[in-house]
């Protein structure tokens, strides 16, 4: 698909050259428009009344007083929007406004639409809600112990949403035959995206199209196509009459990739009132929207030979999902899927369980489900290296997955630049010579100690399968060529800051040999642009890029045909560069791009082309094998240097060296920016970020509440915590990527947390088997060591889970074909369009009460 990935950078017109991104000017002048910047005539404002109890039955909602309040135009309750929705077809378990029950503090119960935000806010206090409290589930272990009352009436059992189990070969035998078996339990606390822009949505009705009008929703969303579907479903609208515009997002990181209740509520209000309605969430409400990193408890058992080679691995994960399904089923699979794509794992067992709890729903955050088990794996490898007296870099280098190979769980690896990443960061940091060796401080030592830690990771360049079952392209690009020479590129992809608009312009301009300024990009608008599934799973550069290359190649062919006819030279002898079409054998015969377009329009009529992209079929044919495959994986390796105070445990990150296997850097400063931004976000998770909860005292309802629903208390790194970062881009072009490019937006986050944990061990000899890795925990581990206890902080036990029977899949090297020997036939288990998905919550119609 890709256009000559093996080309050298200087053979390209624009690829690989540092360049101002297409949206840079709008962003530095304040002209970029975000959802809350939009204002329409006669616009009304919406506020949501949110539950103050974490789990309760709704007995009644009384709205008369609020309806009569100044400026109030409309009050909505759950019975106005009774149809459930959700991002995954298997978990349509959310209602725009709660109907029968609330499931976490912050769950929306009613909406007020008023002339001003102040009036809407004031009227919230006039709504009376009668709630009957229910037992609350505060974490996954409680969910295991307390099956009743159920938070949802669907799921695998009690308060367990999803349980999965796989055996790729006989793992027990592999562990029995290992010289050493290492067993560790790790905990990774949840955290949140904290995009600086608060979610905002504006909905309006266009009356021109008839009595029903057409609904337009502008929203800070990463997934306009999925929002389009959710709006049509939840509001029972013809999707052809719904338009979603994904306006520039002020940061996403996964936090704006679910369809949200507030989006559906303002759309409903606009439909009912015939006036534009806007909502902008407060920062506290953004914490309730959440969909952040799942807290995960995990147990990892790895059998190795004495030279550190992995013989078998067993992983169990327990995810605290919060109150709704969200992407959780996918998140559960993701905690197991990518453990095998870095180092050879001949046999692998994965068991995962996601629980419902009465907290804001967890979902996808940068790395989606994979940073947690990656933390466990990379820390455990460091422990293995220490125990077997091996160099942590050599331990990894000796067992890297081969390029173009299948893993035990049938993930298909294409290019793998991990070895080069490791070598660059190890050499760059002086890792081998400068390590301290993991000695405990001698009592009385107060001088700070330095330590270095290494960790690696891998991530998808786009999920292989869409969220809902379909056989359609994942990304489409449409081009329109104007007589002026201007080319407009239309694509449903969404600019969330990552630079996708720039990739689109680049791919088109490169193929046509014109300048970025000749391209106009129009993205993320379901009325105008072909579908792209959205900015998640690091899919856009690869999928949209390939679709853009296909569309542009078709446009170039049209133009080439016209020019070749005119010049009387073969099409293969035409070169497209510098806004000209040149006859290669005689460069004097040349035509400007604009003249060539005019010629082509005269020949073919109005000019337009399309391109689309669908990932290759995956080799993983077993049930659940749909999560994890991707066209190609990116790889990263990081060395982090820390300086630790041996008394207080306080530490500073001195420097980060990070190598990223990007395939090809399309616009190097933007590529590096994604790497550095990922490093930053990983540092935040390692050092300080955590979404934690506490119980109010009994006289204040005993509710389970968010400890830090504010930016002041939810600590994130400022400029003062950011260390220098040395970035090594490893470019080994991958034939599946556009011009050889792979993903960069998520992968480089993953090695940060384990590299820091390993660096702390190297400095002061203690293990923090938990994220975040705070000074307080280091101090506790140091203290434990002085008292003769293990120099470690972290969980010790993984609770008993009644795992389902594992699907048994023989690895490729044991004669397997990617199917499970004990699976139900595929046609039985495939939920086809039209079938009722299992998580579809009931529709409760308004006759019940008002």
């Amino acid at each position, binding site marked *: 698909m890709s256009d000559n990935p093996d080309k050298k950078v200087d053979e390209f017109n624009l690829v690989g050259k*540092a360049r*101002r*991104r297409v*949206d*840079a*000017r*709008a*962003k*530095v*002048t*304040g*002209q*970029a428009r975000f959802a*809350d*910047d939009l204002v329409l005539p006669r616009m009304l404002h919406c506020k949501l009344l949110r539950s103050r109890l974490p789990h309760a039955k709704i007995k009644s909602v009384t709205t008369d007083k609020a309806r009569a*309040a*100044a*400026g109030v135009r409309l009050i909505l309750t759950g019975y106005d929007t009774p149809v459930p929705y959700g991002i995954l077809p298997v978990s349509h378990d959310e209602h725009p406004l709660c109907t029968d029950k609330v499931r976490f503090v912050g769950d929306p119960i009613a909406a007020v639409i008023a002339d*001003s935000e*102040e*009036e809407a806010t*004031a*009227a919230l*206090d*006039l709504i009376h809600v009668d709630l009957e409290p229910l037992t609350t589930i505060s974490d996954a272990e409680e969910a295991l112990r307390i099956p009743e009352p159920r938070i949802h009436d669907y799921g695998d059992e009690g308060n367990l949403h999803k349980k999965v189990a796989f055996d790729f070969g006989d793992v027990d035998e592999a562990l029995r035959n290992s010289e050493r078996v290492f067993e560790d339990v790790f905990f990774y606390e949840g955290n949140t*995206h*904290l*995009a*600086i*822009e*608060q979610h905002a949505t504006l909905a309006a009705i266009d009356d021109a199209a008839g009595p029903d009008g057409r609904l337009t929703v502008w929203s800070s969303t990463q997934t306009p196509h999925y929002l389009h579907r959710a709006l049509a479903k939840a509001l029972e609208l013809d999707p052809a009459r719904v338009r979603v515009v994904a306006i*520039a*997002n*002020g*940061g*996403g*990181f996964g936090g704006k990739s679910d369809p949200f209740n507030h989006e559906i509520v303002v759309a409903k209000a606009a439909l009912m009132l015939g006036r534009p309605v806007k909502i902008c969430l407060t*920062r506290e409400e953004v914490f309730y929207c959440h969909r952040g990193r799942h807290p995960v408890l995990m147990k990892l058992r790895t059998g190795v030979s004495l030279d550190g080679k992995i013989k078998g691995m067993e992983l169990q994960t327990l995810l605290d999902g919060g109150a709704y399904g969200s992407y959780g089923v996918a998140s559960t699979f993701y905690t197991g899927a990518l453990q095998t794509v870095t180092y050879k794992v001949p046999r692998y067992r994965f068991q995962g369980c996601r629980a419902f709890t009465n907290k804001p729903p967890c979902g996808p955050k940068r790395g989606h489900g994979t940073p947690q088990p990656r933390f466990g794996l990379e820390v455990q490898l460091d422990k293995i290296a220490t125990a077997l007296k091996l160099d942590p870099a050599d331990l990894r280098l000796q067992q890297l997955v081969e390029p173009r190979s299948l893993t035990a769980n049938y993930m298909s690896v294409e290019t793998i630049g991990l070895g080069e990443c490791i070598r660059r960061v190890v050499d760059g940091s002086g890792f081998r010579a400068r390590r301290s060796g993991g000695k405990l401080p001698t009592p009385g030592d107060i001088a700070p100690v330095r330590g270095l830690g290494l960790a690696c990771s891998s991530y998808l360049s786009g999920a292989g399968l869409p969220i809902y079952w379909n056989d359609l392209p994942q990304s489409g690009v449409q081009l329109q060529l104007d007589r002026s020479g201007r080319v407009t590129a239309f694509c449903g992809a969404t600019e969330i*800051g*990552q*630079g996708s608009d720039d990739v689109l312009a680049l791919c088109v301009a490169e193929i046509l040999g014109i300048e970025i300024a000749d391209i106009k990009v129009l993205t993320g608008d379901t009325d105008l642009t072909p579908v792209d599934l959205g900015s998640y799973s690091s899919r856009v550069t690869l999928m949209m890029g390939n679709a853009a290359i296909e569309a542009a190649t078709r446009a170039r062919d049209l133009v080439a045909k016209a020019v070749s006819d005119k010049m009387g030279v073969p099409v293969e002898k035409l070169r497209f560069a510098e806004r000209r079409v040149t006859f290669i054998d005689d460069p004097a015969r040349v035509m400007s791009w604009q003249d060539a377009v005019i010629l082509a329009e005269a020949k073919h009529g109005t000019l337009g082309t399309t391109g689309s992209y669908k990932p290759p079929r995956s080799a993983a044919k077993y049930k659940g094998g749909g999560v994890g495959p991707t066209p190609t994986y990116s790889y990263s390796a990081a060395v982090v240097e820390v300086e630790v105070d041996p008394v207080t445990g306080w530490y500073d990150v001195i420097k980060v060296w990070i190598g990223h296997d990007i395939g090809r850097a399309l616009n190097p*400063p*933007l590529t*590096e*920016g994604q790497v*550095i*931004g*990922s*490093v*930053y*976000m990983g540092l935040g998770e390692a050092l300080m970020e955590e979404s934690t909860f506490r119980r109010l005292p009994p006289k204040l309802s005993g509710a389970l509440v968010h400890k830090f629903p*504010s*930016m*002041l208390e939810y600590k*994130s790194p*400022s*400029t*003062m915590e*950011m260390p220098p*970062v040395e970035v090594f881009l490893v470019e080994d072009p991958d034939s599946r990527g556009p011009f050889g490019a792979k993903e960069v937006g998520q992968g480089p986050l993953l090695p940060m947390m384990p590299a820091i944990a390993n660096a702390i061990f190297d400095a002061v000899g203690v293990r923090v088997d938990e994220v975040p890795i705070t000074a307080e925990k280091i101090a506790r581990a140091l203290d434990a060591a002085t008292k003769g206890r293990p120099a470690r902080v972290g969980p010790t036990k993984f609770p008993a889970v009644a795992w389902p029977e594992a699907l048994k899949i023989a690895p490729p090297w044991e004669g397997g074909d990617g199917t499970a020997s004990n699976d139900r036939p595929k046609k039985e288990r495939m939920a086809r369009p039209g079938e009722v998905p299992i998580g579809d919550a009931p529709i409760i119609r308004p006759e019940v009460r008002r």
Partner: protein
Amino acid sequence: MTSALAEGYTATMNRHATLSLKVNGDEREVAFAPHKTLLEVLREDLALTGTKHGCELGECGACAVLVDGRPVLSCLMLALECEGADVRTIEGMQEGAQLHPLQAAFADLGAAQCGYCTPAMLLTAKALLDDKPSATRDEIRASLSGVLCRCTGYLQIFDAVERAARILAARDREDHV
């Protein structure tokens, strides 16, 4: 909030205050509900939506503008406090159609990703360089520490401020020959 309070609230909202101030070099007179913050008046009454917000509680720094040349959090300042003040927002940073060197450096070096913190970063950096044209990286780091950015990891922002400082200094030298 009780209904009496709600009524009081509404009554306050409907009273308007007027204010004269200088915004991006222009004398402006504006009528607004007196409880409004400078952020709200800029965005809602003066249609200057380049100024952003991430919390409206003084926590994120995204709403920073320059008041009499100094960066302030516009979400924490009542507009009423700005009588006669000289307010500069991102819309007033360009020099005609030309980008300010800080804007150009941010654009070229990848210092704006989603662009949401960018107006505040740029104005805060401008205040720093106006005051200390050859600020060190530590000074840049400290002066920008009140503005959170979730995208960039800050390093390319530091690079951009340093580049702009060099360009401004060179320009200054030219002016003086």
